[in-house]
């Protein structure tokens, strides 16, 4: 257990530099976005009021109030999220492959640690998971901050204020920040499952090389089929014979089965089939 915690700590610290850059980039770009958007709106208002001689009310009637939605819809806001997402997806693969590539092959060390190899697998899994949660938390923390910046730059008359939860709900962010605990478990559970499937597919490739790529793709396909079996069966039969709550229950069960299966297969590959 102790070694597992150390491994997680180690895996996190290996990516920490890039991770912090991602966090910093998100904060800087998003806050800049708020400032840029707010300034643009205000300069438009100024032009309209002082040059076109519109009254404040006329301007607001014509162009609408500025809201945080104007920021979240922009590239300034979504760009960093997209980059962070892409980086993490890339790192899902790199967290394994970096140990094999280069002249210093760290995988030797990891596989020779006096601890169950499953811990290596689980520590990488947990690290990715924690990094996702971390980025989401950062987003949640900086949202009110960005909201305040907006309030500070745009006078009350010109803006329609939103609470943080309103901001989240009107945005793709709502996937990342579920409103209920059940949703949280379902969304992140599904993400976790997807992660185990990909990890195990990577280990297939690492164990059997070219044949392993096919095995890995096959494994992903099988996992997906098992997971969507309840929905798929209804689709095939052409009749919705299950209540939504029953589907949810079945899907949860399937998700757990697929996750456990992936970890089990991954553990088997790491112990019996892996090649440095």
């Amino acid at each position, binding site marked *: 257990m102790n070694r597992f915690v150390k491994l997680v700590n180690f895996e996190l610290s290996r990516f920490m530099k890039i991770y912090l850059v991602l966090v910093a980039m998100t904060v800087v770009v998003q806050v800049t976005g708020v400032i840029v958007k707010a300034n643009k709106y205000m300069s438009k208002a100024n032009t309209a009021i002082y040059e076109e001689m519109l009254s404040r009310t006329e301007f607001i009637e014509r162009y609408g109030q500025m809201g945080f939605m104007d920021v979240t819809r922009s590239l300034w806001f979504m760009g960093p999220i997209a980059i962070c997402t892409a980086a993490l997806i890339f790192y899902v693969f790199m967290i394994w492959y970096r140990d094999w590539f280069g002249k*210093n092959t*760290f995988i*030797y060390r990891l596989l*020779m640690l*006096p*601890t*169950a190899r499953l811990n290596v697998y689980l520590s990488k899994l947990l690290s990715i998971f924690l990094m996702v949660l971390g980025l989401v938390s950062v987003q949640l923390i900086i949202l009110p901050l960005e909201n305040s910046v907006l309030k500070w730059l745009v006078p009350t008359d010109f803006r329609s204020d939103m609470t943080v939860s309103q901001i989240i709900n009107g945005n793709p962010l709502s996937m990342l920040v579920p409103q209920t605990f059940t949703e949280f478990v379902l969304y992140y559970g599904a993400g976790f499952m997807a992660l185990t499937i990909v990890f195990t597919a990577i280990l297939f490739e690492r164990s059997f090389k070219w044949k392993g790529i096919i095995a890995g793709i096959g494994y992903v396909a099988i996992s997906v089929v098992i997971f969507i079996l309840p929905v798929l069966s209804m689709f095939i039969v052409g009749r919705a014979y299950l209540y939504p709550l029953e589907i949810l229950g079945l899907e949860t069960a399937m998700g757990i089965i697929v996750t456990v299966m992936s970890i089990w297969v991954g553990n088997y590959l790491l112990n019996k089939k*892996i*090649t440095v």
Partner: protein
Amino acid sequence: MIEVKDVKKKFGRKHVLKGVSFTANKGEITCVIGINGVGKTTILNTIMNLTPLNSGQILIDGEKINKHSYEKITFIPDAITMLPSMTIREAMQFMDDFYDSWNQERATELLGFFKLKETEKINNLSKGNRAKINLLLGLALDVDYLLMDEPFSGIDMFSREQIADVFTSHLVEDRGVIITTHEISDIEHLIDKSVLLDNGVVLKEFNTEDMRETEGKSIVDVMREVYQQ
């Protein structure tokens, strides 16, 4: 004792090990000799369960390798197994964190012996010095068995001499060592047992002093006989 019993291993269609058997005793230096590409490294990898074997069995003190074995046996591959971005100190810290058998006192001693500073980054070390740190990370574990893959290849003469000196010291004494090499001359006087490997099979396994005593043959003499048949 490490027992390698009829180990077979293929990569794709290529049979790398075609039934390799030999033993290596504790307190002895066993040398697996063979030209490049005859499966020397693969043998060490299979002993450490770093690659699966197709058939056969490997026992370490009578048991199959498991997670606890890594406190008892260690492997020094031909490239360093630490992150290049680490300093020597960080690498040692990593070992200390994960291995109960890590002996910091010995590591410090080795660092002095090799005249290396722990603040140096692995990435910035010369090839010879990197090999020494690689060796240090293995030797400073209080393990019964040490496997080394070509510790002398591709490094300068003085580093080679320093590394050879390790074998005559208490750092290796009483442990079981398996070393692979394609170039015997550096260590001909040091090894207790030779295992001549070619094309995935063991051609001959012999005690070097006994061979000199009873047949008056050097290791190279035996190699010449065996390989040129």
